[in-house]
């Protein structure tokens, strides 16, 4: 009961926020009360927009942040990858149950411990049509997570991410949605993802070879990429096409 009252108080604070600094302060405060030393709220490397406009707020110690940046731990970070395969919060010690870890992943996690990064709890934030994100709460090594606070952390993470989206939208209006692909462009990209050539796609869709080339050229321009593989990856990443679109039939 008391914990839920704390959540309500936090949500009231969120409603009145007008800057990222205030959001950061509110998150830092409630993280501490939930027994976490640090938080990090982030879009997982926003490939469509510059790093400048993607959401990233944290109060990690300088050496942790530097470690993540130096190792370019964006999408390849096992924590982020795990958050793409689940829609609810998980502790970092659960990651091996969520994704298959490579030797490099084990290395990354082990080196994180060397840097003093202990266990954490990550709340994934998936909004269809946008890059994935997450809100994590983390502790130094030897500070166990108080598991009875995790339902509260789950709520706080979800609402904080939405608050960040809202602030971000105020800062750069119109950027969140962007120009969508046309239906024909989407269809062509789905067949590209299935490995078809432009000529094959033209036969399948019953349109001319030139038209397919034009659709895919315009779609590549929309994402600012030159290769068809990157086009399919971008369209999947921002939700313009889904894995279901590719695998069905």
């Amino acid at each position, binding site marked *: 009961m008391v914990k839920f009252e704390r959540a309500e108080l936090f949500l009231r604070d969120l409603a009145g926020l007008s800057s990222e600094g205030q959001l950061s302060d509110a998150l830092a405060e409630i993280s501490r009360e939930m027994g976490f030393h640090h938080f990090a709220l982030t879009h997982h490397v926003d490939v469509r927009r510059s790093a400048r406009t993607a959401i990233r707020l944290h109060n990690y110690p300088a050496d942790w942040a530097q470690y993540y940046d130096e190792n370019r731990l964006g999408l390849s970070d096992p924590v982020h990858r795990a958050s793409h395969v*689940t829609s609810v919060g998980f502790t970092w010690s659960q990651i091996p149950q969520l994704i298959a870890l490579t030797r490099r992943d084990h290395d990354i996690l082990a080196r994180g411990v060397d840097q003093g990064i202990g266990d954490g709890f990550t709340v994934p934030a*998936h909004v*269809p049509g946008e890059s994935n994100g997450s809100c994590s709460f983390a502790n130094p090594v030897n500070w166990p997570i108080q598991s009875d606070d995790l339902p509260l952390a789950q709520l706080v993470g*979800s609402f904080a991410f939405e608050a960040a989206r*809202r602030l971000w939208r105020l800062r750069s209006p119109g950027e969140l949605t962007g120009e969508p692909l046309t239906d024909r462009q989407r269809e062509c990209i789905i067949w590209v993802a299935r490995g078809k050539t432009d000529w094959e796609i033209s036969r399948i869709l019953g349109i001319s070879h030139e038209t397919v080339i034009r659709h895919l050229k315009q779609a590549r321009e929309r994402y600012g990429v030159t290769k068809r593989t990157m086009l399919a990856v971008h369209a999947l990443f921002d939700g313009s*096409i*889904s894995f279901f679109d590719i695998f069905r039939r």
Partner: protein
Amino acid sequence: MVTIAERVRHPFESRALRAMFAARKQVFVDLLRWDVPVIDGRYEVDQYDDEHAHYIILTDDEGEHLGSARLLQTIRPHILDTLFPELCDISPPARPDALEITRFCLDRRLAASERLEIRNRLVSALVDHALASSIRTYCGVAELGWLQQILAFGWRCRPLGLPRRVDGKLLGAFAIDIAADTPALLEASGLYRPEPLQAARTPELV
């Protein structure tokens, strides 16, 4: 087309209702594996589908189901008070002007981009229906993975309690407050799709 069906006397009294109950079976039973009753092997109909339930049904030009939602009165037995009372740390709304959104259903045939569009139209119809019928609050139970989307609609959503794990799923209870400015909030999130709401003509029983 958006149809609002109220005082439904028989679940199969119109084509839109039949299409909706069949789509619900495909989504909630076949896809999501919910343990809910099925009639004739084709229709998902439970004890809350009675004359007190309201339905919002989106159909295409041919009358095929696109998306739908069921609204239950909070002054009568509904999902939150009968099945999941433990999800509420504060008293959930129980008033004539508060309805519970249940069975939010997007047709399985839809591709990813169509799903988002139908979802937007359904959410817009829910808000417009609330404003036209003096509904001030919606409430509901949602899996936490779906919460981020519900929040991203931009309307005023608040939790009614801390999330809890029920049968392996993390569930939460939420309330959404609807006011005159709610359409503008959806608009600011880029998803408001207003369209006329048709009241279903209830055919006389023969």
